[in-house]
């Protein structure tokens, strides 16, 4: 059961934050409010009147709009077409495009949400797509706007702008339900907070409540908001990437001349807004995507041209960013998923047969070691929660002797308990002398784990900075802005010089000194 007797009241003109962990049932609740799912029990009142929403059509008619976590925009349509869709105005039977454009511009000007009505959505950055989504909801005259995890894809500055827009909407008399698991944003914007845990309302709070109290309410126990770790002791150079260029699926340059090196015993974090080439960079290292130019070396052994199997077996662990697509085979058992990389090797099997006894024994050990909550190693991975599925992936990838460990979005869609655990394992891996690369769109995660932070923007490493760098500055870098206060300004320099150039500043050398013992993950 995703929602168990939840009560929620939203007043006119307020920002009501719905706070809860991944999988707590926030989105399920809102999908019922938006008519995408039907409640088994209970009722929805709008302005004191009971309403049934059989489809989003009914919800829209009742003045409810929703901006989904995964944008509901048709990629090949223009902005105006997307906004008009479902509420098209026609003239003599044909679409009235001029009127659609005018409406978009009107709403966009009224609420300070700049969008280009003629741009094709798939060419827009995520921040702009989100503005399109908000404009789309506003053109439908909503009184209540639901924003489902809206800040997950934004830079800190874009988040600031979004919060300002939300304020403006409330001043115009709209109510907002703001779904999130980020405490800082809740405290910044919410008028009231409802906390949901395991499908139940566990309390309401005012924004003055301290963060650790909110976190405890959300998780159900006291949580440490920090990753504790020692100073890094960087050793030999393990991963060396030079002059790497990679194209994305559409043939557009995604990684554009990247130079990077990671030493044994350090964590290099890559920060950046999603879609700036991080995915393609990691895929190129893993042999999943062709490197057009450049070299990728691990301990001076060139990986380019090797198959992914060879790369994995040369001592590289890899946690892919999309767990359900690339990380596990959902229909397979936990035990089978744990040996996906070694099923054809003794003791698990050979070229002709598997050894179920060995596989099962190894699985029991891993389940114990990595605290994987499953009824049995024989259960299908699909029956596990997101956090435990991710632990299966991490356990598998850490079961080989490693030289390099790559984790892409290691805690996406994972509950707080599992986040703590996975972060601990990553730091442990670093401490035993593995080179670690962490890619995350959550800036907090990068700051907490990394000994050095490389900021990626439009396929290039803009700068490499210590984790003590102020957030404001990191945010600007993530937006591609290298101001006077930024470490290096490789504006005119060729990209191949950019990374080493910024290195000369408090980059790698400073990491041991400045990598303080504890950093907040607030």
């Amino acid at each position, binding site marked *: 059961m995703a929602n168990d007797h939840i009560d929620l009241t939203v007043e006119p003109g307020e920002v009501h934050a719905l706070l809860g962990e991944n999988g707590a049932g926030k989105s399920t609740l809102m999908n019922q409010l938006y008519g*995408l799912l039907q409640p088994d029990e209970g009722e929805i009142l709008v302005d004191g009147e009971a309403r049934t929403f059989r489809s989003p*059509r009914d919800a829209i008619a009742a003045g409810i709009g929703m901006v989904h976590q995964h944008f509901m925009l048709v990629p090949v349509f223009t902005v105006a077409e*997307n906004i008009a869709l479902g509420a098209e105005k*026609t003239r003599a039977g044909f679409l009235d495009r001029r009127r659609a454009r005018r409406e978009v511009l009107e709403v966009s000007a009224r609420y300070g949400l700049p969008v280009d009505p003629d741009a094709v959505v798939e060419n827009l950055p995520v921040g702009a797509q989100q503005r399109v989504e908000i404009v789309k909801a506003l053109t439908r005259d909503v009184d209540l706007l639901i924003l489902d995890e809206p800040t997950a894809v934004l830079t800190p500055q874009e988040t600031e702008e979004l919060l300002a827009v939300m304020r403006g909407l409330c001043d115009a008399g709209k109510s907002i339900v703001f779904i999130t698991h980020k405490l800082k944003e809740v405290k910044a914007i919410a008028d009231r907070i409802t906390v949901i845990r395991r499908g139940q309302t566990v309390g309401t709070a005012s924004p003055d409540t301290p963060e650790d109290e909110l976190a405890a309410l959300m998780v159900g126990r006291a949580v440490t908001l920090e990753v504790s770790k020692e100073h890094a002791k960087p050793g030999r150079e393990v991963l060396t990437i030079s002059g790497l260029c990679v194209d994305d699926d559409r043939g557009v340059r995604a990684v554009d001349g990247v130079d990077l090196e990671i030493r044994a015993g350090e964590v290099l974090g890559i920060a950046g807004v999603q879609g700036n080439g991080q995915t393609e960079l990691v895929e190129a290292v893993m042999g999943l995507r062709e490197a057009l130019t450049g070299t990728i070396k691990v301990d001076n052994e060139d990986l380019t041209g090797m198959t992914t199997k060879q790369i994995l077996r040369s001592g590289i662990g890899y946690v892919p960013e999309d767990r359900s697509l690339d990380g596990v085979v959902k229909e397979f058992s936990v035990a089978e998923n744990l040996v996906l990389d070694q099923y054809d090797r003794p003791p698990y099997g050979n070229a002709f047969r598997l050894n179920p006894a060995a596989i099962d024994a190894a699985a029991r050990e891993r389940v114990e070691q990595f605290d994987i909550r499953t009824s049995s190693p024989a259960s299908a991975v699909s029956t596990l929660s997101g956090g435990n599925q991710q632990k299966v992936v991490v356990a598998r990838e850490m079961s080989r002797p490693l030289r390099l460990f790559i984790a892409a979005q290691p805690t996406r869609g994972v509950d707080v308990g599992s986040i703590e655990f996975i972060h601990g394992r990553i730091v442990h891996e670093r401490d035993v002398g593995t080179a670690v690369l962490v890619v995350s769109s959550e800036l907090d995660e990068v700051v907490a784990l990394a000994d050095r932070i490389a900021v990626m923007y*439009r396929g290039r490493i803009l700068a490499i900075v210590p984790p003590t760098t102020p957030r404001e500055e990191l945010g600007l870098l993530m937006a591609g*802005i290298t*101001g006077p206060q930024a470490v290096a300004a490789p504006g005119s320099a060729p990209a191949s010089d950019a990374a080493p150039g910024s290195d000369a500043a408090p980059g790698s050398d400073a990491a041991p000194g400045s990598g303080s013992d504890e950093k907040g993950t607030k």
Partner: protein
Amino acid sequence: MTGVSTATVQEAPVTVAPARFMDRQRRLGVGVTLIGLVAAILFGALAPSQTARFTLSEDAEGAALSINGQLGAILFGIIAIAAGSVLLAGLLRKYQTTILVLGILAFVLSFLCWQVAGKFLPLVDTVSGSLELAVPLILGALAGVLGERSGVVNVAIEGQFLMGAFFAALVGTMATSVWAGLFSAALGGVLIAAILAVLAIRFLVDQVVVGIVLNLLALGITGFLYERLMQPDAQSYNEPPKMPEWRIPGLADIPVVGPVLFDTNLLVWLALILVFALHFGLTRSRWGLRTRAVGEHPTAADTVGIRVRGLRYLNVLIGGVIAGAGGAYFTLVSTGSFNKNMTAGAGFIALAALIFGRWTPFGALGAALFFGFAQKLATYLSVAGSPVPSQFLNMLPYLATIVAVAGLVGRVRGPAAAGQPYVKS
């Protein structure tokens, strides 16, 4: 945010790695140059040095365009080589498609010069014959466009053709009315479409599998009824009246175009009008915008209150009407009676035209005309006693589709959600 005014935004051009030299245009250039060489050398060498006559009438009489066959084959071959070289040199990138079409056209003309040398080719007959062969393909491909743009793959066009052809013959004969035949042909197409729609949309069965099964079902039913009902008593069940040809005075007197377009039957006009109607419908109307949205991102359409499944049903059923009418063409226009498996794969060529035409009405029209021309030429070659086996030309639609799907002639990107049933999460 005060730092923004003094800061610089990174807008460096993306240029570090050089673009690949052998890009799409150059690859196309290689292909066109090669076929040009084949044309100039092979066709040129084989062509007898006799006059090739392309007459403007339906027979050998009257005005004609004449050229020495050998000279023509070499000349057009050289034009194709020139077009290929322009592409290969990376020039005139803006006109890439035009040059490509020019090159292929020159190749076809070179081939014709070789084949027609010492003989004649009646142009009007060729053009109108191509169009006639293309009409069912156009209708079938449009039915496919309707389904796929809304997210339902329809490989049952062949089955819809067969049902349409069968019912047109049966009801047309029994009612002694062409129009009753045409109407029931549409019903036959809708019957298959309805089964496809319910199984694919309601019961989420794999659409390609359903389509193939429906083709076999239609083949079985019509084959059985043909043997049991039509064959024993053809007079009362399988002699439908033929569709009348209407001549529009004035317009029909225009050379070449007149007899082809303005002295013909209703279905030809219907097919051509539908191409325009669907084009404007899909791009300009509310229904079209919603159809495309449902075919690209059904969840997005659902969240703005569009009934995804309803729209898919509607489109597949309208497609059934169109494909059924396409089937009627076989019995009411081409042959005049039904025969077992008489469509002989035309539905699959329509499917090929749909893909080759990149899921657009005008693309489907162009592809269908091209395939129709290939079929017409195949008949001409076998009658003229050409050394080139006519089967080679009959292979052309499939070959062209493989080339198209392999991405050699431009990127082929169908509707993103085609073939995926919509399930609310």
